[in-house]
């Protein structure tokens, strides 16, 4: 097994009386695609929000490459090499595709407090942006305004923008949600390709897709982890079947 890249210890997010994430301890290994599944309201997105620094944990810690990152803000975590996509498409709607990726690529400069340098002359930033646009399959849409593209393309773009930040670890929050079959297939292929040189934590409702791409699976219910293992192990797990598959219409969101 590859070494651990990210781990959580008793990670908890409490909102009033409700624990959206309840003492979750998990390990994620390098070069693996680790999917997290569970019914709506299981706390999956909250879990991702904790990892990416959008939310501060109530208790518990997160370690990334051995370093405690549980109190770091979102921008600092991004700079450590953790990229994320959001459940609701989260891009710069008024920007063109290339501009979206340029902003992503530029974030890897030590800082952007350059006031009189021409941004267009940062050739390596531009190249990296174009490369990531190519990776997500939008090379021919460089100058399209993001808001005017189809929903599927916007999701692709979000992944492209994330790739421009050169992350090692990707946090993907339901990248297939709301997509048609063809679009979904394209994104699955993209994920397959990314798997080659990235660690991925994936939240997804589309079980067929998950079983195809995932190396490991974790099942969350009511903020708690009820099982973790390989795809085969999880499929065989009785408890999972009862708690989850019984009342979940697979592939539906």
């Amino acid at each position, binding site marked *: 097994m590859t070494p651990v890249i990210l781990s959580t210890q008793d990670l908890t997010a409490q909102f009033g009386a409700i624990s959206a994430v309840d003492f979750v301890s998990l390990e994620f290994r390098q070069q693996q695609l680790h999917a997290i599944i569970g019914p709506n309201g299981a706390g999956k997105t909250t879990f991702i929000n904790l990892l990416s620094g959008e939310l501060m944990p109530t208790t518990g810690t997160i370690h990334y490459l051995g370093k405690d990152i549980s109190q770091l803000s979102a921008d*600092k975590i*991004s700079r450590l090499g953790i990229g994320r996509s959001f459940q609701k498409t989260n891009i*710069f709607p008024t920007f063109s595709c*290339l501009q979206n990726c340029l902003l992503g690529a530029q974030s890897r*400069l030590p800082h952007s407090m*350059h*006031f009189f340098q021409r941004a267009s002359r940062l050739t390596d930033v531009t190249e990296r942006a174009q490369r990531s646009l190519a990776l997500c399959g939008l090379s021919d849409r*460089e*100058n399209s305004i993001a808001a005017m593209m189809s929903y599927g393309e916007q999701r692709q773009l979000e992944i492209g923008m994330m790739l421009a930040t050169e992350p090692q670890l990707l946090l993907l929050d339901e990248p297939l949600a709301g997509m048609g079959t063809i679009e979904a297939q394209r994104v699955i292929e993209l994920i397959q390709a990314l798997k080659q040189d990235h660690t991925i934590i994936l939240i997804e409702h589309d079980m067929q897709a998950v079983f195809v791409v995932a190396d490991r699976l974790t099942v969350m219910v009511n903020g708690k982890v009820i099982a973790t293992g390989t795809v085969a192990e999880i499929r065989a797990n009785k408890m999972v079947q009862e708690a989850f598959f019984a009342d979940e219409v697979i592939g539906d969101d």
Partner: protein
Amino acid sequence: MEFSRPVRWLLLLAVLLLAVFPFVGADYYTELVVRIMIFGIFAMSLDLLIGFTGLVSFGHAAFFGLAGYVLAIVTPESSGVSLFWSLPLSILASGLAAAIIGWFSVRTTGIYFIMITLAFAQMVFYYFQEAVQWGGSDGMFLFFRPTVTIGNTVILDLEQNRTFYYFVLGSLVASLLLVKRLLGSPFGRVIMGIKANESRTRAIGYATFYYKWVSFIIAGMLAGLAGYLEVTHTGTISPGYLAWHESGIVIMVVVLGGLGTLYGPVIGAFVFVVLQDTLQDYTSHWLLIMGILVILIALFLPKGVTGLLDQILYRQGIQNTNNEDHGHQDHRT
């Protein structure tokens, strides 16, 4: 940030017209144009915040007035002071105030940001309103304009209205180019990202607080430049310059001209000042007409005069023109 080709030509034409205006315009209108240009710089500085960083500041007049006060305070009654140190000093004072106010304000968003900038500006306003040593509510005079001399040679005699006119025109053009350059820089890219989607900007690795803060400071300093010029122009400064009404009017001017265009607010200043000047001649109830106009703008012209201009230039939907604009820009990058 690049201007489209027709806009560039129009701007060049506008600068040329402004450059010859003192030779053809009556003195009164030359004065009026000076006022418009100064107001234009002020509005442009606010556009950097509202139109490009997405920060609706309701206290921008504080920085405008503060720099003016600094100039009036350091100028003795008997002679003018050198521009070479008084201008940087005034701008720095506004910048410092913006740094302090921004440090607290930029943490908040939405209505709270509007209100906290208002609160701080009111503090500055009341400080000068009650500062008896600086004229209290009646304000102060500037008896002599700043001097621009090296050794004993007078480089520019700002007391000459025509010289001052060109000095203001130069400041306006320089400010426009400077801010445009700023927006084309890596920094500019980030603040525009913040306006478009702040949480996303943070999530891809930018400490947005610092970028908003620095943008707030730069805008404050540019407003300071405008305030410095205004006091040099009118020879007076009073707390009224810092009042919330003035902050409201400059917001109106920015929207009137067109948000996020840089040159739009200058056009807004032009329209506003000329309107005010003309309406006043017809009725002492001109504020009523102004009020109706303001409401019409809010309802029907959210993209301001430049939005209208865009539509005329391209004869098509604004969305499409935007599309093209960005297209041009990216080919150049």
